[in-house]
Structures are given as C-alpha cells and as structure tokens.
C-alpha cells in the first residue's frame, strides 16, 4: 500500500512534466528571434545607387524582423571611415556585418578581427582580397565590363578611340570592370583605349577629367564611364563641349540624371545593376549566416544593358525605376 502511493505520485509528476513540455512546445515560437542588430556599411549614400541598396536592406530587415545599424561615408574613397564603423560593429557585438568596401585591401584586418570574434561578414557590391567573408553578393563586374565593351564596340562600328573614366583606383568594382572591358575590347582591334582617368566618385571631378580628355584627344569616339557619378559628370562634359553627338558614352547604373541623359541621347547606353536586390540579399544572407545556416559563397545579382529603345519596356521599367509610390 505504501509502495502504491509512491507510484501514483510518480505518475502525477510525470504528467506534470509532460504537461509543461507540451505548453512549452506550443507556446514558444518556432523561429529563434535575432535580438542583436546587423551592421550594414555602404559607400556614399548621396548616390541613388546606395539609396536603393539601403531601401533593399530595410525591406529585408522588415521582412526578417531584424534591426539594422546602417552606416555610410561621405565619399566613395573614404575607406578609413568604413574601418571606423567596422570597429564599432565589433564593439557592439553585432550579429553580422554587411559591407560594401571602398578598398580591396585596407579593410581586411578588421574583417579578420570580426570573423575571429564569431561575427560573420558578408560583402556586397565590391569584393575584398580575403577568403574570410562568408558570401559575396555582387554583380559579375568583369562580365559587366565586358558587356560595356561589346556595346561600345558595336556603337562605334568596331573602330575608334575610347577613354575610360574610372572611379576609385583601389575599388574592386573599378578594377574588375576595367579588367573586363579591356579583355573584351582586345577582341575588337579597331578600338583603341587611349586614356584612363579617375573621378573618385565625384561628378564634378569626372566632368573635369572628361573635358581634359576631350581636349587631349580631339578625335575621341567613345567613353566608358565606370560608375554613375563618372557617367553623369562625363555627360555634363560632353554637353558643355558640344561633343555629345560625336562621342558615344556608355555608363554604369541609373540615376535620374543618367536616365535623363539616356533619354535625350547624350548617354547612349548604360549597364544597370540591381542595387535594391543587393541590399535585400545582403540582409537576408546575413540573417542566415547569423543563424549558422549555410549560405552561398557568391550571388551574382546580374547586370542589364539599357538603351533608349528598351528603357521603357515592362521589364526594364522595373529595373530602372524603383517602385516608390510616395
């Protein structure tokens, strides 16, 4: 009789434990909520391109219910500023870091520190000279450069002098796009690359160096502008010098200004990336990496060649003009 009583109490205890387990399983939500923020560092937010990256990033942040620490620098070459932000991220022990690096080398030590501290680093837009980042989300810049070369060669009929207006010498995108351009252009022997200048992300500087180039090469037939400020600055220069009809300009990215030039014919073609997608995927990948899920090493967000003719097609509309109902 004594023994039986103990057995009953044991059964009661088991039932209570099972009950608590059931309550726990039912009530606790399935996904673990990330409480610490994700650090997102871009380049010059004054450019529409980075604005779109930001929009994509916040869109993803809302969807995945994470908070973002969003940092940017005043211009595309301020890698020291970016290093400062990375230091802050390390201090705050963020869940993950998404970085669009101004320079391929300078940020590597900080990336090493972050990775050692268990904070995964995702690079977007620009790659770095390191294997430590868990993922790279960017346009295939080499192939984008190649596309530009193809378009420009076609526009020139395969013959002519061209100049490159690049942006920051140490930036991955600058290096890779030029690389791709040159490689492709080598297949068009009639086209000669006569000059490469750097605009450091400033349209006014771009205008200045373009004017310079135009004066140095009076028979210049084509321009390859490696990013948007370069393209807009160069377009301004063409209009100023009244050379917009004789010089074919192929640019990169799509600001409103660039689109206007595209429509009016000053810019003949532009290779457009997917900044919104880049920002979105940056955050999404960061969330996955923070949850220790496998992430792809490289996501190619793609590039499209836009001309005056195809810019208002249904697909390209969506690409060129980010949906912004307000």
């Amino acid at each position, binding site marked *: *009789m004594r023994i*039986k*009583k103990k057995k*009953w*109490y044991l*059964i*009661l205890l088991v*039932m*209570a434990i*099972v*009950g608590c387990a*059931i*309550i726990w399983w*039912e*009530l606790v939500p399935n996904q673990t909520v990330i409480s610490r923020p994700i650090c997102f560092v871009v380049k010059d937010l004054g450019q529409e391109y980075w604005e779109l990256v930001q*929009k*994509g990033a916040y*869109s993803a942040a809302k*969807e995945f219910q994470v908070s973002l620490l969003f940092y940017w620098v005043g211009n595309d070459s301020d890698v020291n500023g970016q290093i400062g932000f990375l230091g802050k991220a390390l201090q705050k022990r963020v869940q993950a870091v998404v970085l669009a690096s101004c320079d391929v080398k300078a940020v590597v030590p900080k990336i090493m520190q972050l990775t050692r501290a268990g904070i995964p680093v995702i690079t977007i837009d620009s790659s770095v000279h390191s294997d430590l980042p868990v993922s790279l989300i960017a346009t295939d810049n080499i192939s984008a450069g190649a596309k530009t070369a193809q378009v420009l060669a076609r526009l020139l009929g395969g013959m002519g002098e061209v100049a490159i207006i690049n942006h920051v010498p140490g930036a991955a995108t600058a290096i890779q796009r030029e690389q791709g351009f040159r490689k492709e252009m080598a297949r068009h022997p009639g086209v000669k690359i006569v000059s490469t200048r750097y605009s450091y992300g400033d349209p006014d500087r771009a205008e200045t160096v373009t004017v310079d180039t135009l004066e140095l090469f009076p028979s210049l037939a084509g321009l390859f502008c490696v990013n948007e400020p370069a393209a807009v600055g160069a377009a301004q220069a063409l209009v100023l010098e009244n050379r917009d009809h004789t010089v074919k300009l192929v640019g990169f990215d799509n600001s*409103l200004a660039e*689109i*206007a030039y595209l*429509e009016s014919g000053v810019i003949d073609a532009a290779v457009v990336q*997917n900044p*919104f*997608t880049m920002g*979105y*995927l940056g955050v999404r990948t960061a969330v996955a990496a923070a949850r220790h899920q496998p992430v792809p090493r490289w996501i190619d967000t793609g590039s499209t060649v836009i001309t005056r003719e195809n810019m*208002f097609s*249904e697909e390209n*509309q*969506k*690409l*060129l*003009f*980010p*949906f*912004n*109902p*307000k």
Partner: protein
Amino acid sequence: MLSFIAIIPPVLILVSWAVYEESARSLNQITALYSEQITKQVSQNIEQYIRDMNDLASLLYWDPDVRGFLTAPGKPPQIIPRRRIEGWLVTVPKIRSDIRAVYVFGHDGRVLMGPEVGELKSWIRYQDQIWYREAIQVKDRSVVSSSHVQNLFLNQYPWVVSLSRAILDPHSGEVLGVILIDLNFSVIDDICNQITLGSRGYVFILDQKGSIVYHPQQQLVYSGLKTENIDRILHMKSGTFTEKETGEPRRVTVCISRATGWRIVGVGYTRDLLVPADRLRKTVILACLAALTGGLGVLIFLASRIAHPIQRLERSMRRVEAGELGITVPVTAQYEIAALEDAFNLMSQRIRDLLEQTRREQEAKRKSELRALQAQINPHFLYNTLDSVVWMAESGRLQDVVTMVSALAKLFRRALSGGKDIIPVCDEIEHVENYLIIQKIRYGELFNYHLEVAPELMPVLTLKLLLQPLVENSIYHGIKHKGPPGRIVIRGYAKDQELILEVEDDGVGMTPARLANWRQRPPSSSSGVGLTNVEERIQLYFGEEFGLRIFSEPDRGTRVTINLPLKPPN
C-alpha cells in the same frame, strides 16, 4: 480501481479530441469565409474607386469646353488654352491627393494640362503609347492600365495607374483625343491595407494579363526576390486555394472584379489563420491535462481514504476465513468505512464467541450423554437383575427367565448401541417397556403400569432415554416407600404443538421443599442423576423452553411431565 483509471484517460482524450476537431473545423471554415468576404470587400472598394475615376473622366468627356478645345481650328502649338478648364485640371489633383495629374491629349498633338505639370518630352509620340491606343480601340469605355512608369514628361518618372478614355465626335464617331488620368497608389494602398488576413497577410491586385497593378512589396516582386503564383491565379475563377510556394503554406483567395477585369488576391499564411484553432487546441490540451491531473489527484485521495481501508478489511476477512478468529482491524478510516470496520470487528468476535459456545454445548452434550449412559448401564441394576434371573432360574420360572433376559438384552442393546439421539416415540416406549418388564418381574406385586400413548404419536420423534429414568424414580422414590400396590401411568399426547410425555405414580410424593429444589440435588446415586440429566439433555437438544416439570403432593403421588417440540417424523 485500476480499470477505472484505465478507462478515464482514453475516454477523456477521445471526447476532447472529437470536440476539438469539430470546433477547429468550424473555426477554419469561418476563417476561410472571412478571407473570401474580405477580399470581396476590397474588390468592391477598388471597383468603387475606379468608378469614381470614371465619373471624373465622364465629367471631362461631356464638358463642352473640353470638346471645344479639341475641335477648335488651328494646329498645335497655337491652341488657345482654356483657362477655366486648365484651372480645373490643376484644382482636382490638388484636392485629391491620389490623382497625380489629369490631361487631355488631342489626336493632332494639342494637349490640355495644368501649367505646373511639367514639360512634355518633345520626342515622345503619345499617340503610340499603350494607354492612348487602347482607349481608341475600346472607344466607348475607359481603359485602366496596370502599374507603369509615366514617361511623358521631362525628368519625371512616376509609377502610376492610368485611366484613359477616348473622346469621340458624336456625329462622325471620329476620335478627337484621349483623356488621361494618372493615379498614384495612395488610395489603393489604403484600401488594401485595411484588411487583416492574419498577422502577415496582405492583398495584391493583378490585371487581366497578369501584370501587377499593386502589391505591398512591389519592388521585391519587380526585383524577382518575391514571387506569386500568378499563372494559377490567372487561370482560375473566383475562389480559394492553398499553396506552398514560399515554403510555408498559404491560403490564396481570388476575387475577380467584373468592372475592371482585375483580380484581387488575398493572401494569408495558413499558420496565422489557424491561430484561433491553435489556441483552441492548446486550451483543450491544457484542460484535458488539468482534468486528468485533477482526476488522478482525486483518485489518489479516494484510494487512500476508501479503497485501501476496504482492501485492508478484505485481507482481514480472508484471515478470518482461514481460521484466525477474533482478529480486529484498527478503526482508522472515516465515514462509512468506519462503520464497516466496527461491524467487522463485532462479527469477528461474535463468530469466535459462537464457536466457543457451540464447542461448550457439544461438550456438555457429550458429558450428559455419558452420564445418561452411565445411568443406563447402572451396575446395581445389572447385578440385581442377574440375581433375579438366577433366583428365577433356581425356582424354575423358566419363562420369566427368558423374558427377563430378553428384556435385559434389548435394554442394554439400546443403551450401548449409541446411534441416534432422536428416535421415534415407539422406540422410546419399547425401551421403557423393557425396563418395566424386568422390574415387574422382579418386584411382582409392587406396582402395575399402564401405557397411555396416543397411537398417532408413535412415529413422532423424541429424544431417547427420557422415560426410563423417570420410571426408575417413580419406582424407587415414589412407590417403594409407599408400598404396594403402586400404579405407574405413562402417557404421551400432543398439546399446543408440543409432545407431552408423562410419568405419573401414586407414590409417596415429594415435600414442597424437595419439589422446589429438586434440580439442586447433588448427583449421588443413579436416580439422583436421572431427572436433572433428563432435563439437561432436553434443554441441550431443544432449548430452554422445553424440559421437565414435576407436580407432586406428599402421599398422593408425583407426576413428571416432559415437554418436547412436536417433531413429525421427517
């Protein structure tokens, strides 16, 4: 107890599960209905909105000043703008925040629009644009586009939904121009945001071709980062289906708006929509668990208070059954169990006492019998009788010798044979007769005897060895002292459901004192044992209401009456 416990949980769970299933089904049905209603409501609101825009277009359509502008002679750009209409074209967008702009495009290139709208791009041929062409094609109705970028104006690339309507000449049917109203998404956004389809649900709108008119995450869809099941939605009529495109099951409700041809699609995440059912399930499970735990608690309580005492009692009863008499259980329980335990204790002791009593009675019976037997096998009687036999044999009274010896033999045979205590009256009479025969021969003229027993009583049962001691008493204590001739009468009759046997003599009788305390006489001689022994045996066998009664008068005689129950011979 155990079987009781085994039944309750399955029954409880079964009932709870049945209740939950039914309720969950109802809940889900209601939720599905609600989703459909809501989507329909949005559709109706959108239709109303478009109708409002249509009305606006109609106003312009019928406005004579508009027609006047379109039909005025001259070639653009030398058209005199009508300030009134232009003012109107400016005011409307200002009043309604959802209307981006209103314009009227003439077929020959003249354009009516507000002055702040912007500069028309010189290289654009608006007549080639889709909104213009479709309006002309349809002619008598408005055409609503899906979302697109409005690229008519310099440096402006807004996303709009355009409503266009052709203005025809009423006589010739020729196209004069097209009214264009550009809508931003604020109202559509508001209408679609009103609804809640679970915490994560939303509404989006597709046009007939599957292009997106509105989607709360439009940029994501345009970037290809988010997909909807557009194919399936396009090919179905209004209704609901569930899909698992994004990995999580979702319920998609489609409502086709007849007025616009658009498809209003409501999307809810199944898990969110099932939250009420989920909550119900949790509640049912918790209630079940609580009931089971509570039930178990009560059972344990009952077990310790009721079942265990009863089991204790049962075990004690087994022990009593096995022969352990007189054991008791400690009265610990409460309520009815205590009464049971008391009763058990009482019963146990009573059984023991009864058994004791029976044992004692049996012993007493045996002793009595023994004494009766002793009385019967009286040595003196034997010696004397044998002496008589010898004397009679010496005297040559052979016949008397035979009689005497036969009677003696029968007497002793009965006395020594043991056997039944209860015998028929006739046997008892025969026995006493044998005795009387012997005594008669011995004592000759001392007495005479009569037997007066009703013949119908012969088969009736009586206790053996009753009459002979009485007759012995009569002879030795009654008649012998008085002298011949004595008279002994033995009677047997039934009265008041009793068997009465009497032995009456007219001997010396008893003094009142001896009569009063005849029972207390010490068992000295054989005759002394007789009466008390007879009564003792009668009472042992039949109870205290039966027995001996003595009626005696000095010098008159004595009558001893035996009362026995009347036992028919079965």
